[in-house]
């Protein structure tokens, strides 16, 4: 039996476009990524493991994962409020506010990085109020979290908006007519329905936070073991020509991204079934 790889179609151009797609994908993405994996495989397990679990490297994972988790959690909470307000209420300037949510996508990361550092530094508009209270932000893990809050917000809001739009109003009415208070309706009817989308947004913001570089390096201060995130350590190792060290961290971070990608796909499948 012949296995048909593709169903017949009268539309032309499959060979040409598929051929070009595969060639270009291989040249720009797949072969370069293969170089990373092969280079890492070539150094031998012991050296790789030693490079990937060096104390300074472990500290950078802890910081990257911790700050990304904190940033994603803050974004999940406030992103839910922003998405809810944008979908359900009307107020002056709403379209403008909706457009501004995408600002972190559009603003180059280096620009957000220096702007946030300026704001939260000891002399900055925000930093000068927090510093006397004993809460330094710039050059601390808190500063890294602030930068990741900035960068991750649109992921949560843009994932939640369609889910809130798709909510069935009749269900809410039914809950209300059966005697549920508005808070009960929200917690027992609305929240479970939008939970997959909320978790997807959280995971997307977390994944972005793990890999983020530009907006973080300025505000983090980059002290080894204290405020050195994993992507920065890759750059530092490269500058010292420690290719093995750089590759080991990169492979660990890449593995984390793939696990998250898988989780996000499962979450999206779940939320599609949910609606």
């Amino acid at each position, binding site marked *: 039996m012949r296995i048909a790889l593709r169903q017949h179609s009268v*539309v032309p151009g499959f060979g040409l476009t598929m051929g070009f797609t595969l060639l270009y994908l291989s040249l720009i993405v797949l072969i370069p990524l293969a*170089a990373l994996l092969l280079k890492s495989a070539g150094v031998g397990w012991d050296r790789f493991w030693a490079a990937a679990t060096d104390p300074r490297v472990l500290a950078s994972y802890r910081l990257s994962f911790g700050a990304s988790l904190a940033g994603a959690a803050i974004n999940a909470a406030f992103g839910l409020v922003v998405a809810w307000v944008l979908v359900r209420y009307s107020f002056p300037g709403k379209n403008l506010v909706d*457009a501004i*949510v995408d600002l972190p996508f559009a*603003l180059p990361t280096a620009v957000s990085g*220096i702007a946030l550092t300026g704001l939260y530094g000891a002399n900055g508009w925000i930093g000068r109020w927090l510093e006397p209270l004993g809460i330094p932000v710039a050059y601390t893990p808190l500063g890294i979290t602030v930068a990741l809050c900035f960068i991750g917000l649109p992921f949560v809001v843009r994932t939640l908006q369609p889910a809130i739009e798709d909510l069935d109003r009749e269900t809410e009415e039914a809950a209300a007519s059966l005697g549920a208070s508005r808070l009960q309706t929200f917690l027992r009817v609305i929240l479970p329905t939008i939970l997959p989308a909320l978790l997807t947004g959280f995971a997307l913001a977390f994944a972005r936070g793990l890999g983020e570089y530009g907006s973080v390096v300025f505000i983090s201060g980059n002290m080894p073991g204290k405020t050195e995130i994993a992507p920065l350590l890759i750059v530092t190792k490269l500058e010292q020509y420690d*290719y093995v060290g750089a590759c080991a961290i990169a492979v660990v971070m890449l593995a984390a991204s793939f696990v998250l990608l898988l989780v996000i796909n499962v979450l999206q499948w779940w939320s*599609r079934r949910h609606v």
Partner: protein
Amino acid sequence: MSEAVLIPTTPMARPRSDAAISEPAVVRWALVAVAMLFLGLFLVLPLVAVFVQALEKGVGLYLKSLVDRDALAAVRLTLLTALVVVPLNTVFGVAAAWAIAKFEFTGKQVLTTLVDLPFSISPVIAGLVFVLLFGRDGWLGPWLEARDLKVLFAVPGIVLATLFVTFPFVARELIPLMQAQGAEEEEAARALGAGGWQTFRRVTLPNVKWGLLYGVILCNGRAMGEFGAVSVVSGHIRGQTNTMPLHVEILYNEYNLVAAFAVASLLAMLALVTLVLKSVLQWKVARQLALAADGPAGGRKP
């Protein structure tokens, strides 16, 4: 959740009460206030700070920072990079969307995931892979060196790293749009005797033009603003391999704040233009999708 609740099949003579499905006014306004405060503090304030700090020492110094020789070289390199990267990734995006949306084949889901892959990879790793390929110890390093070709710490490396990070933008906008539109119109054009290229140009392109432009705008914004990936491969040679974001970094680290924020303000303006175009195009794409949903093809954006 919805199946757990009984919904009356015949509408009851009960006025639809909005109060029952909305929050009390106090809660509504409190939530709006929280949302605005959060967005103001985290999004708007940094943007305002860029322009304020750029103009802090007057317009004269601001303009002088922009016409500086190295700043102009950075602007030129950024424009050149975008000029190479955006058309290449646009051609790829159209080809990939055509293959994925108009045909049924085995492994489609895998291909779609691979196209999106660069979005899940840290920009620093995107730069690293090209160092491993083209660096002195890399696969192609010795070969390039023997021929006196420079990729790393030169313009080709910057272009490659930017190609990598902006790879999915056009494709991921076009794929859902073209999937929603189906292949019926193209099939009809073919049946009426149109050639392949003619079908694409006269039938497909008008149907997807806004989505295509949307993808191009986003791709361009990222290509001009990319920092992490480019920073790894550029070598930071002033006036030669510094793009605008890298130039911002150098000036900032030299405590030349006015100049750093002046160049940053150009990038911020680019971001604002991108946002405006994005909002306009989003509306146009939504209309094209609605048209596709009304047509025989049916379906909607997932």
